[in-house]
């Protein structure tokens, strides 16, 4: 059976990517990997997942309005604040 990612529906493709990013995050949590770079990498995974949910599951992709940007801003600003807090805590 051909399980090429490209042969799946777009939403199914996104689902597979979300699951993979989640497993990657969990593996990092299980490992001895720590430090600011790892923390920010994990946060980037989370923000990417949020963007994928917004664009593909919530149907915001291609929307020419402030609504899509509101969700992007929600990901970027708190993400930025969290990053800053973790950097200054080192």
């Amino acid at each position, binding site marked *: 059976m051909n399980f090429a990612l490209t042969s799946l529906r777009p*939403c*199914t493709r996104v*689902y597979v990517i*979300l*699951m993979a990013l*989640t*497993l990657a*995050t*969990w593996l*990092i*949590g*299980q490992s001895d990997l*720590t430090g600011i770079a790892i*923390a920010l990498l*994990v*946060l980037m*995974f*989370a*923000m990417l*997942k*949020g963007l994928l*949910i*917004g664009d*593909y*599951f*919530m*149907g*915001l992709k*291609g*929307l*020419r*309005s402030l*609504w*899509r940007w*509101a*969700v992007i801003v*929600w990901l970027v*600003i*708190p*993400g930025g*604040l*969290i990053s800053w*807090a*973790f950097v*200054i*805590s080192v």
Partner: protein
Amino acid sequence: MHDHRTYPPGDLAIWIFILAELLVFAIFFAAYAFTRVGHVELFNTYQQTLDTNAALANTLALITSSYFVMRAVAAIREDNIKHCVRWLIAAIVMGLLFLLIKSAEYAQHYSHGINLRTNIFYMFYLSLTFFHFMHVIMGMVILASVAFMARRGKYSAADHTGVHTGASYWHMVDMVWLILFPLVYVMR
């Protein structure tokens, strides 16, 4: 009927509500991160006591439930009411799984005498996750209402704003957890 190229799918009122909820969670997340600055060792230590396997299972459950909701929306777009209802029920079951796993975690903490007053990390962890827990319950009630209405023939390919509305709220609940999980359970 509004222009879907400009407006997000579903009722605009739910989107205003979604943005308000996202704002509250954003403030909560920032408060957690900045409070941690003054208590790094404490946060790192007690974070290790959390069950990341349970959190992984919860994350997978919520992502899967969001996917099922997506499939429900796709089904009603094709006028397939039966499949729409089945996918919504499947999504609710995944939501229930989330609640059961989270409840088991809370029971475990309670059995060890952990509560909101234990320390500042647990105060944030318990209040953040419980606040989200309540949103999952609300989301499940919304999805159940949508499934009930769909079964009664209230939605069709021509008119399924209600399905989009319920779906949008549920995806918000999922999105919030996708930030909460790494922030509270993993990042150190």
